[in-house]
């Protein structure tokens, strides 16, 4: 695949709130090449979700520009190729798992036969076959996360934006998601995800960027960044300035 | 494991069923109690003592008034009495006229029955409202439902034994049924309760006088049918006293005086009956000038 999956140029987002303004992002530049797995890291409140919302066109940036596969993020064409998993994902509780997937397929205007086969495939891959025709309101936290991931994958998107995909999952649940991401990587998809699980990031990512207070403080291959810090976790604590608070 | 799941499912289903059943039962009970207590209490008139009773009775009078207006609306086929309006040439107004007809109209014949539920509600909510009962009777007679009308009148007589209008209607029904002697008795009683010594200027008194004339007319006709001509003449002369200068009555008196006492023909009674048939349909609360009765 040619070109860059994601490009952000001088992206600034300022929220106006009652207490004044909040600079969630201050002029970040970031390039995610297509076909790579990119880890987007940062402490709570760093601005990761905000950046993703800009990419999806939920927020108009105060200044700067973002594009996906060369298309401006404000147009709906850009979203044709994206799959997005929000943080704390919730599906329509009154639908069954299968209906929820079918809904995603129709919104992407897929053929009915295609929708059927794809839903079946994903339900199998994510271990949801038995629960497929049960209301989502009866799902556990992990099943909810998986059905939402399946929903995200219905259109077989080229770019996946996953906001903490393993958040709140047990080790086996995390394992399943990791396997899924690996599988997508081998199929040449671009994956842009945020996570607080640094060991997992170290294992999976081609490159990472670390965000702190709305600015990118580090970017590169995990192995190269770790260097003398021995682990990504130590490095992360150092560059985000949280090390001093905790101590060595 | 299997059994636990099953019992949970059944338990939830049962719970839900009981929940719904409770809601429906409670609501139905509340609804019927509200309706019933309103109707029952006020037909007995014993609630008037307590404050709540008084409040309820005020509320039910208001409600019965609303039902009465509704009855009037039904008589006019749902078209409310028109009042002065602006914007008659606006788009909305013209379109509304098309969708909701607003021309003056009345119900006729069998379709008069559609008014009855509202009158029934009025009589249930406010048993003292004798006008509503009389209107019901009037409409029932138009519909030739004499049995029903008689039942309503009997009811009305129980609550208002001294109302001459109730007795007058009863008399008319008996005449229709050819029960002449019963009619005579009841109209005599009606005459006794028809007090006309009041001012004679106000609408109420005028109505009473008109009623008195009707009673006397019927009594005269009955007397004539029974061959009691001199008494018939007396009755008619009493009418002349109230409404002097009535040409028709005067000629009838002259004709009666010419005939020998004891000769009965029943023509007066026939004339009254056919007059009643031809009487145009009217609804007493319809007081608007443009209501072409």
């Amino acid at each position, binding site marked *: 695949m040619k070109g860059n999956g994601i490009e952000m140029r001088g992206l600034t987002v300022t929220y106006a709130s009652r207490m004044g303004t909040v600079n969630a992002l201050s002029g970040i530049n970031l390039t995610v090449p297509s076909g790579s797995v990119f880890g987007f890291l940062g402490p709570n409140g760093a601005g990761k*979700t905000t950046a993703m919302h800009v990419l*999806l*066109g*939920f927020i*108009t940036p105060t200044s700067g520009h973002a594009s996906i596969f060369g298309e401006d993020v404000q147009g709906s064409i850009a*979203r*044709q190729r994206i*799959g*997005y*998993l*929000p943080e*704390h994902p*919730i*599906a*329509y509780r*009154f*639908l069954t798992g299968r*209906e929820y997937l079918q*809904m*995603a397929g*129709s*919104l*992407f*205007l897929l053929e009915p036969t295609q929708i059927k086969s794809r839903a079946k495939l994903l339900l199998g891959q994510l271990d949801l076959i038995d629960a497929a025709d049960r*209301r989502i309101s009866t799902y556990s936290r992990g099943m909810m996360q998986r059905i939402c991931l399946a929903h*995200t994958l219905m*259109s077989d998107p080229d770019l996946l934006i996953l906001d903490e995909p393993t958040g709140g999952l047990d080790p086996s649940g995390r394992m399943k998601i990791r396997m899924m991401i690996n599988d997508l990587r081998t199929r040449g998809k671009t994956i842009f995800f945020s996570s607080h699980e640094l060991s997992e990031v170290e294992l999976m990512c081609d490159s990472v960027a670390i965000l702190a207070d709305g600015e990118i403080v580090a970017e590169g291959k995990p192995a190269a960044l770790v260097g003398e810090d021995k682990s990504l976790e130590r490095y992360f604590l150092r560059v985000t300035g949280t090390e001093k608070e905790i101590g060595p | 494991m299997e059994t636990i799941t099953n019992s949970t499912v059944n338990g939830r289903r049962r719970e839900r069923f009981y929940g719904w059943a409770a809601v*429906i039962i409670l*609501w*139905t009970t509340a*609804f*019927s109690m509200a309706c019933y207590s309103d109707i029952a209490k006020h037909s007995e008139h014993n609630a008037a003592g307590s404050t709540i009773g008084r409040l309820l009775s005020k509320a039910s009078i208001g409600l019965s008034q609303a039902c009465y207006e509704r009855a009037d609306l*039904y008589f006019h*086929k*749902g*078209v409310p009495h028109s*009042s*002065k*309006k*602006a*914007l008659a040439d*606006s788009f*909305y107004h013209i*379109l*509304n006229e*098309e*969708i*909701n*007809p607003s021309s003056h109209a009345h119900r006729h014949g069998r*379709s008069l*029955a*559609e008014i*009855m*539920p*509202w009158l*029934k509600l009025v009589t249930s909510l406010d048993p003292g409202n004798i006008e509503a009962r009389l209107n019901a009777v009037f409409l029932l007679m138009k519909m030739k*439902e004499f049995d*029903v009308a008689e*039942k*309503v009148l009997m009811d009305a007589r129980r609550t208002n034994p001294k109302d001459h209008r109730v007795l007058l209607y009863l008399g008319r029904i008996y005449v229709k049924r050819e029960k002449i002697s019963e009619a005579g008795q009841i109209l005599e009683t009606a005459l006794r309760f028809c007090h006309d010594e009041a001012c004679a200027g106000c609408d109420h008194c005028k109505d009473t006088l008109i009623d008195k004339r009707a009673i006397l007319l019927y009594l005269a006709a009955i007397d004539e049918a029974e061959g009691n001509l001199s008494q018939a003449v007396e009755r008619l002369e009493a009418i002349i006293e109230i409404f002097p200068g009535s040409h028709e009555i005067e000629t009838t008196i002259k004709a009666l005086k010419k005939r020998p006492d004891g000769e009965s023909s029943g023509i007066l009674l026939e004339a009254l009956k056919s007059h009643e048939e031809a009487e145009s349909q009217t609804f007493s609360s319809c007081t608007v000038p443009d209501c072409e009765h």
Partner: protein
Amino acid sequence: MKIRRIITIAKTVWLEALRRKDVYVLLILLGIMIVAVMSLDIFGLGGVVGYVKDVGLLAAWFFGMVVAITISTRQLPDEEKANTIFPLLAKPVTRAELLTGKWAGATVSATIAMLACYLLLAVLVKLKGGAFEGFTFLQCYLLHAWAIGVICAIGILFSTRLNKDAAATLSYVTAGAAFLLIPQIPRIVVNAQCVQRSGLLVLYYIMPHLELFDMRRRMVHDWGPASWSSLLYVMIYGLVLIGLLLVLSWLAYRRKVLSRADLF
């Protein structure tokens, strides 16, 4: 605007209405109410159904408004509250499609609920020995459905910027006024002073006129069907009104910064 996306969103609204049980409660209440009214003994006369139609249709209009407003005003706020709006808008779904789909779903759901009401009423009237006149029944239902469309559009408009309770309250006030107060303006205006008069006239012309969709008088009092041309006029008026309300909703919603649910 892709019709299939709109239909998909509308279908989801319909499934929600079908599976949440609140509409059934209203239907049961309606049934009980009509049966209670039917059991009134009218001096022993049979075949009297006008008042049953009257009360039944009044209840149907009332419940129709309640269903339309509850369903339409909860759509957008609930999506935002449950965080489901994000995966939805992350797809190539435009906000215009979202609003149209939500409106269509709410309207269809409420209209089908009303169809159940009408059929129930028709059956009960039949049991009481009466009948509805076919064409008038059809016209009355058709215009009622149109009115529900307008009410749903009002609900959607308010819910773009307000939470669902506030939106529902405002929708009730607006729809109630459009139904009961606005038609009275010609009567009031006769005695109004200069400034008041202009205010009333402005209201009269800009507010939706829901009374135009109400054919109950023809149904209850046997006036027979209205002319199809006037029906067509009213339907076109309704479409214009709905279009206007949806465009306003779109203007209010198109750049809205969606709030994140507090799920922490």
